[in-house]
């Protein structure tokens, strides 16, 4: 029994850690989808851009400046992407805006490739959360413990925001019925901007936690986590924030269990298999709401 725990604890810890990081990204996806019915393919690249911003800023500025500056940079980036690439296409068919998202993702990846010369950069060490800590017999970084805690705190704050503030009510209204909310006088542009700002803020925090654990930053680092976070959002029920978080943790842990069993080639494929399973048998996800399509 003890040996079993001994052998498998690192996998579990890795799973919880990465699950929390996926959760922070997944929230961004689920919020944007809930309001705009758009899969923001560029979200994973905003996540990577945040990491690069940290790498470059930390090279010249002290940590207590570069940290908040990175968050501001990421938020501005998310906001800009929305304004430039998604707003003009709001009245266009759904496919156009999704293609625009793919185009933005492509552009961001190529920009990062160009600016960094395509070589992996080392993420700076953020003190305290990078420290090693021992749990039972497994050694890991402090960030593994911090992540779930921080994630839950942020999610609770977010849920409070959505349920008890005016802007939160506006967000709920817009995700329920876009047209009517506009007729009711809600400033759609502001609501959408706030959504992207919150999503990008969480992505920035997520990137700090993720890259403290996995220190090499390449332009495509964010592609897989982004995709998995999206799967988590769908799995938990698109449009539902608690669902996205739970989905993310389940995916993070399951992924590591698959690696523990020895089928490492399939760890990524498993995530997609889970997605397809959910889509076919319960398309609204674990906690999603069933919407009816009117003819």
């Amino acid at each position, binding site marked *: 029994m003890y040996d079993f725990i001994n052998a498998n604890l690192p996998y579990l810890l890795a799973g919880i850690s990465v699950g929390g990081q996926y959760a922070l990204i997944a929230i961004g996806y689920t919020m944007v989808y809930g309001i705009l*019915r758009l*899969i923001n393919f560029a979200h994973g690249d905003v996540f990577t851009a945040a990491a690069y911003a940290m790498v470059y800023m930390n090279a010249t500025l002290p940590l207590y400046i570069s940290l908040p500056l990175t968050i501001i940079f990421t938020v501005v980036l998310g906001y800009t992407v929305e304004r*430039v*690439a998604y707003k*003009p*296409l709001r009245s*266009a068919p*759904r*496919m*156009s805006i*999704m*293609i*625009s998202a*793919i*185009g*933005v*993702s*492509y*552009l961001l990846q*190529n*920009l990062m*490739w*160009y600016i960094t*010369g*395509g070589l992996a950069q080392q993420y700076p060490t953020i003190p305290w959360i990078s420290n090693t800590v021992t749990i039972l017999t497994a050694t890991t970084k402090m960030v593994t413990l911090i992540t779930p805690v921080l994630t839950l705190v942020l999610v609770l704050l977010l849920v409070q925001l959505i349920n008890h503030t005016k802007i939160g009510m506006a967000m709920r209204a817009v995700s329920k019925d876009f047209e009517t909310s506009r007729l009711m006088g809600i400033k759609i542009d502001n609501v959408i901007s706030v959504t992207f700002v919150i999503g990008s803020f969480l992505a920035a925090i997520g990137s700090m936690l993720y890259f403290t654990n996995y220190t090499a930053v390449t332009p495509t680092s964010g592609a897989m986590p982004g*995709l998995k976070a*999206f*799967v988590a959002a*769908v799995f938990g029920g698109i449009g539902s924030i608690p669902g996205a978080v739970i989905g993310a943790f389940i995916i993070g842990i399951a992924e590591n269990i698959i690696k523990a069993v020895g089928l490492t*080639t*399939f760890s*990524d*494929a498993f995530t*997609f*298999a889970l*997605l*397809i399973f959910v*889509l*076919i048998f319960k*398309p609204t996800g674990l906690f999603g709401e069933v919407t009816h399509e009117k*003819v």
Partner: protein
Amino acid sequence: MKAFKIILSLLLVVLAGFLIFYSINASDLSTLLEDIVPQETMQQDKGLQKAVKRINDSLAEANQDKTLRSLNRLLEDFSDKIQMDAEAKLDLFFYRNNKVTLAFALFILILSAALIASALLKQQKYQKAIIMAVLIAMLYSGIYIVENLVGSNSMLMTVLKKGAIYALLAVSMNLLNGFTGLFSLGQAGFMLIGAYTYAIFTIDPASRAQVYQYYDGGLVQFTLPVMVAIILAGLAAAFFAFLIGLPVLRLKSDYLAIATLGFAEIIRAIFQYDGLGPITNGSNLLRKFTTFNTALFPFAVSGICIALIALLINSTYGRSFKAIRDDEVAAEAMGINLFVHKQLAFVTSSFFAGIGGALLAMYQTTVQAAAFTSAMTYEILLIVVIGGMGSISGSVLASFLFVASSEWWLRFLDNVTYIGTFKVPLLRSGFRMVVFSVIIMAVVLFYRKGIMGDKEFSLKRLLEPRKGGKRRG
């Protein structure tokens, strides 16, 4: 008019006859060499001897490329030592440009046949068919001629080959996304299946032990003829599309996109799986399979496939697809069986994607599962969008533009350039892709309909002058 056409066509036939006669009768190279290189000069000049020997060696090896290269060198380096009279010059011209003159002669024959036909058959639909035939003949003979003039390894031919392959892939994706309105992102997976099926069945048996070095030579030990392998590639992809389509096609557009993307990733993981190594070579390269050596092959295969897709779209099935795209519920109400038609579109699109994958494998000369990522699907999607969703000619045009820009025209942006001693800022490796992405974003945002919108390329519109005057009302 009629008489003029007939006389012109007869003249063309005569010209073609001359070209064919001289091309066939161009004497073989060794005797030609003996004629133009005098014996005494050859005995004195060691360099000349070496050059002539090299040409004869390449002829013995039957290495056409090397022979021509050596011949060109001989003519360049020793132009003063060679004696060429008019007849020798003509002979040499026809030897060196043998293929070009034959192809040109063939084209002239087709042109004259078309002229005769157009003189004799007056109806409009025949005229259109004749013009189409001439244009197609011009395209294919043009490609062949250019290839032999420029050399099949030049940048232009590389771009043309890749462009032709991407054209087929773009049209197959357009069939699904643009004409039927099914937003599917699984193209890369079907290309992968097609590429692997083709490669596995055409690897030279002698090289199998080497290619499958970690799997004791692999399971498949025979080869199939090329055309059979290509069709098999398409069928394999279509089969998997059928299976995948069963659960996936009833999902709504966004979910369909993610589900197909997911399946593409799963397929990729399966092909990289070690356990299937004896068949797929696991995650290692597949190589030494049959490739094409002339650009005509991908053009021919793509051309036929695109023609088939165009026929499908102009049939009743095509109209059903468009109806489904415009309004699914209305289409169902009109009696169109949604599931059957969606499956048809999905399977057909994947069949051609599989063939496209096989062609891509032949172009790259190596196949590896890791290369068929979702990024490849996005590229093809972007091509379709730029060309115009719902326009076949748009997709074809856009794919050539896309390949030419990204592989060739914009390559200079990647090189560090100096004007004098001033280093031009921004220009270094990677800038090409940035500029390219910006252009794509501009098209997506501002030219949403793409180059051709949903219209096809029509000669009529091109040739008819605009009816003048302002429109009223």
